[in-house]
């Protein structure tokens, strides 16, 4: 009958002579485990702007907007930390695996508005040199060209892009909406959107 008391007493004594079980949190920062899934961050260098992460995010926390800024078209990728559930899908499905990476930060508390809890990066678009329609982010085109290697020869625009990137062809940059005059034979040596490419091939 007295056994329970002895047991409780033993626990009590043990607790009395051991350090507090709780952490001294704000004073001593908490270090999560190595594989902790925390706040995701975009990395300008690793990301190519393909927006695959926005497609797979179950919480729709990643938003992408393609907009015209002066003479450039930019894709703005934004991760909204107030919506993010730290699931890690974006990192797991990232095209380059280095574009968005979950950090170990667990503390989302802020004194700002929740709308301010976000991070954005911008990626510049290639626009069609004939009709000025945005085609694909530069970096993503470069990534594809690099990935394909010799196979880039099968696609004229891709090949041109590749030759330019290694300095073997003239660098020129079209601006969005700028419609060039006519499509003729020389148009084929430009980076074109699929529509213009088709037209150029047929007309020449």
């Amino acid at each position, binding site marked *: *009958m007295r*056994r*329970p008391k002895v*047991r*409780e007493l033993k*626990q009590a004594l043990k607790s009395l002579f051991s350090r507090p*079980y709780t952490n001294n949190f704000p004073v001593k920062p908490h270090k*999560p*485990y190595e*594989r*902790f*899934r925390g706040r995701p961050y975009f990395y300008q260098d690793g990301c190519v702007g393909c927006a695959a992460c926005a497609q*797979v995010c*179950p*919480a729709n926390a990643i938003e992408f907007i393609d907009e015209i800024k002066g003479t450039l078209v930019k894709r703005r990728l934004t991760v909204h930390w107030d919506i993010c*559930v*730290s*699931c*890690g*899908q974006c990192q*797991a499905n990232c095209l380059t695996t280095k574009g968005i990476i979950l950090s170990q930060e667990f503390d989302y508390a802020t004194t700002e508005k929740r709308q301010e809890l976000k991070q954005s990066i911008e990626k510049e678009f290639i626009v069609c040199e004939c009709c000025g329609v945005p085609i694909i982010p530069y970096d993503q085109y470069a990534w594809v060209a690099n990935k394909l290697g010799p196979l880039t020869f099968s696609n004229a625009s891709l090949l041109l892009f590749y030759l330019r990137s290694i300095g073997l062809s003239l660098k020129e940059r079209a601006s969005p909406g700028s419609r060039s005059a006519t499509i003729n034979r020389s148009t084929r040596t430009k980076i074109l959107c699929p529509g213009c490419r088709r037209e150029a091939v047929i007309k020449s």
Partner: protein
Amino acid sequence: MSHKIIVPIGPYHPLQEEPEFFQLYVEGEKVVDIDIIIGYNHRGIEKLSESKHFDQVPFLVERICGICSSSHPYAYVLAVENILGGEFNIVPEKSLFIRTIIDELQRIHSHLLWLGLVGHFIGYNTVWMWAWKFREPVLDMFEMVTGNRNNYAMFKVGGVRRDIKDDDIPQIKKMLDELLPGIDLFHGAIMDDPIIKMRLKDVGRLTRQQAIEWAVVGPTARASGVNIDIRRDEPYGSSDRLDWKVIIEKDGDIFCKTVVRILELYESISLIRQCLDKMPKSGIIDADIKDIPVGEGIGRVEAPRGECFHYIVSDGTNRPLRHKIRSPSFMNVASDKVAAVGGTISDATLTLAAVDPCYCCTERVAVINKSDNSKIMNGWDLIKLSQDKTLKLKESYYGRSK
């Protein structure tokens, strides 16, 4: 009728896992009837699920409940795998073990949480503190293996998302070893503490016949002597390859429900250990399923509270056409209608909590006098009532002076 008082227990609170509204009809101390109204927190999960890709749904359904946040995704992936030809046919060997480990770890932390709450309700706040203390390493294990303490994001159609590294295994085993003395402590406290025994015995009894009639599931049913456990009846994961037993008690009172849960803690620990030993050292963890064919499938999982059921219809696109979910508490909560009636009002909180719904709701219980609708007590008063009863028992047992 004039002096019959209605005690509304309940709440609708967005933080709650399962908001219920209990209206107790009491005559003096005695509960004569109880009304249970649910459905306050309709989040539209099933509809939402139909707008997500098959690969995104696990993240949604694991947020149905923060405590059994691996049972729902598990039942969901089982349902989808049922369409694809069954879990055992497509999921890689290693994933089966990882799935069972996550499932059992979750059972441990859920049962510990429940034990703590019961301790709190009967006025043993020490038990409450202990339970939380021993639950902490379990959550740490989750953080180490899955990357989060809740919402594990592990389940995926055709496998799991994260591997358990070989380096982690000794540490998990060590943490499990450290957990055992804690559970022994609870086991001892429940089995030989006369006060706890007096307080829980014969309270909120659900007989075997009643349990079958009210179709209760999980530990609530097993405490009443109903021999059901999905892990054995319809094996999933690696549960059919491991050595364990289903815990059954006969009496169906809260004491039995507590014993069942404590003994299940031992079984879960042994299951995890066997999994860690038998798990293949290497191998793929994901079958890389891309397309879900047309069809319908069901998935059943033994969640800590009982059978969790998911039903999926696929029309060949990348989203489910229909997703039906039935969670265990939906079945168990109804049984309060027989379990709580006839008991005293100070036992009511305990009985309602014994089926293990998420019970933050007691915080806003109110006792209202029916004749003039005046509030007599709030939720804390009811818990206090329950705790006072324990105190009285204690005093009469040990003598007033102790």
